[in-house]
């Protein structure tokens, strides 16, 4: 299943997206000319540190960015041929939950405490597919069984379920109307490691069964390796490297990517200090000029502060990177090295 892309044009294509938030501290440049592309049936990982703008990207796709103070300044989000940014709120609602679904990070608070879980699933089915309450409920119970929650617990309330089970309910809600795209925002971060494995296993199973394309937002490279076909690395509101899992993991090219992979402690190596990328994610109100990463980059040269890097294609299927090194504009002789052979 992972190898077959069903049709040639991408399911989701984001072009040149710019999203800002107007706050009393200044304008927050959350997303800066983002380019992203997801093919049908694929699972794309969106990786980055906290504050990179991953959730904002997801919310932008869903059309859930609150309009004051946020605003989409420019760009296109083309989903199945339609530019979502041109939709009215009414039209957008028809997409949410039925063609594009999103699941959020914290399952403990994602469910309405006063409604039984089956109701919360049935609700979205009844809303989008116009089924009667009974039929919607039948379908809801089917979905519960799909995520391995027994039918006799269908009328229980969220607080009666564990964290892992709650997240499964959330997944059931998201997939109830068989969406073409599932956006998962750190779906396992709030869970115990053992439960994490279970939930990921289940998501893979569902992906195989239903063929849903998935945008998996995470900062956990282990999760990426487990579940994803392609990877996009995000930094300060833009994608700086993107490609297939193999390409990015075996040939990480951007200095930031190299730094990320290098910061994973190796189980069979003894080191004195944990490797880290120096410095902090830049303040989105006050982004550095030129390449956003240059203040933290050990390969940076003066040119990096002046020019924003363009897209450079690298050898490999769809591997590209945004860095002046690969445009040949810098003086360095040795390319950043690092890989995840041992992960």
């Amino acid at each position: 299943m992972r190898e077959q892309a069903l049709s040639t044009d991408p399911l989701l294509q984001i072009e040149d997206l710019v999203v800002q938030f107007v706050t009393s501290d200044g304008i927050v440049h959350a997303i800066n000319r983002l380019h992203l592309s997801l093919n049908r049936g694929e699972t794309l990982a969106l990786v980055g540190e906290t504050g990179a703008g991953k959730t904002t990207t997801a919310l932008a796709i869903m059309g859930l960015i609150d309009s004051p103070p946020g605003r989409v300044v420019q760009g296109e989000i083309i989903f199945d041929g339609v530019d979502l940014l041109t939709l009215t709120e009414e039209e957008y609602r028809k997409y949410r939950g039925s063609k594009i679904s999103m699941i959020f990070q914290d399952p403990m608070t994602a469910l309405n405490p006063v409604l039984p879980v089956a109701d919360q699933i049935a609700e979205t089915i009844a809303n989008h597919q116009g089924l009667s309450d009974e039929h919607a409920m039948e379908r809801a119970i089917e979905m519960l069984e799909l995520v391995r929650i027994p039918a006799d617990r269908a009328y229980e309330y969220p607080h009666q379920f564990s964290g892992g089970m709650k997240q499964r309910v959330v997944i059931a809600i998201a997939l109830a109307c068989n969406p073409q795209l599932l956006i998962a925002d750190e779906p396992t971060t709030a869970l115990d490691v053992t439960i994490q494995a279970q939930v990921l296993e289940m998501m893979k199973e569902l992906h195989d069964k239903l063929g849903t394309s998935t945008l998996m937002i995470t900062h956990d490279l282990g999760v990426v390796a487990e579940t994803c076909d392609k990877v996009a690395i995000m930094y300060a509101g833009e994608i700086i490297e993107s490609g297939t899992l193999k390409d990015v993991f075996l040939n990480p090219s951007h200095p930031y990517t190299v730094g990320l992979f290098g910061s994973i402690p190796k189980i069979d190596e003894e080191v004195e200090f944990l490797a880290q990328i120096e410095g902090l994610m830049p303040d989105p109100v006050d982004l550095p000029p030129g390449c956003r990463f240059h203040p933290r980059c050990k390969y940076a040269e003066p040119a990096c502060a002046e020019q924003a890097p363009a897209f450079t294609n690298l050898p490999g299927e769809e591997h590209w990177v945004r860095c002046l090194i690969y445009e040949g504009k810098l003086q360095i002789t040795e390319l950043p090295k690092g890989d995840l052979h041992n992960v």
Partner: protein
Amino acid sequence: MSKYVFKRLLHIIPVLIGVTFLVFALLSFSPGDPAQAILGVGAKPEELAMMREQLGLNDPVIVQYLRYMGGVVTGNFGTSYSTKQPVLEMIRIRLPNTLILSFGSLLLIFIVAIPLGVVLAIKQNSFFDNVMRVVTLILAAMPGFWLGLMLIILFSVKLGWLPSNGLESAKAAIMPLVCLSVAGWTTNSRLVRASMLDVIRQDYIRTARAKGLPYRRIVRKHALKNALMPIVTSIGMAIGQCVGGSVIIETVFGINGLGKMMVDALRQKDIPTIMASVIISAVIIALANLLTDLSYAFIDPRIRSTYVKPKAKAKATAGGGVSA
């Protein structure tokens, strides 16, 4: 569940005892001689002494108290020192008026404050919201009795539309009900607004939006249902305030109700009537609290679980009241 209700009803008894004993004891320190009050000014010393003996005033406080409560339990609330009527009869005449005022205003508060609060939350920071903020501020600053007097000036004196006294007609009930309800409108509409705004920020509302549900449905089924808890608390408390507030309103509008009865009784040190009023109010409030707690269980399934599962959760904190 019914076990819980029964337990709570039993709980009322010690509180009632505490309250009544407290008031009884306080009143026993009150200056003035009930025998004097009953027999009038010209009574002779021997008559006073005999009356005091008859009333049992020479016994220790606790004996008097027990004697009184014994009577209450059998339905005998004694005879008023001032009106010489059986207190129970006095209550029977006046109860309907007070009930109309109290429950009428409770209903009015509910009907106005909740929808208003929801609208204010949805239209947060709009012109309407800001105007209402000022209006609420001013209305809340008005004492009920002053508002009553001003309304009387406007509607009775200047315009002659509404009667200013008594509760004979529906028209007569308008101003008193409004005066009693205004405080409830101001506090509760702001409370509903705040509670809704709080709920709207919650994650499950975000989930509901991500499901593509229509706005109205989100407000009704997801937001409002969760916002109800503090509102129920507040309405529960409003019952207590209505009981107290009716005292003032009855005075302003010359309505013959329990509140007025109590105030007159206090002025005249008419102990049996005072005690009866206290018991009635305490019972009403205790029942209101019980109803409030039961409503919590009705609304919030999390609380329901602590009651319905008897074994492990028998020590639920519910018995002590849900703290706000």
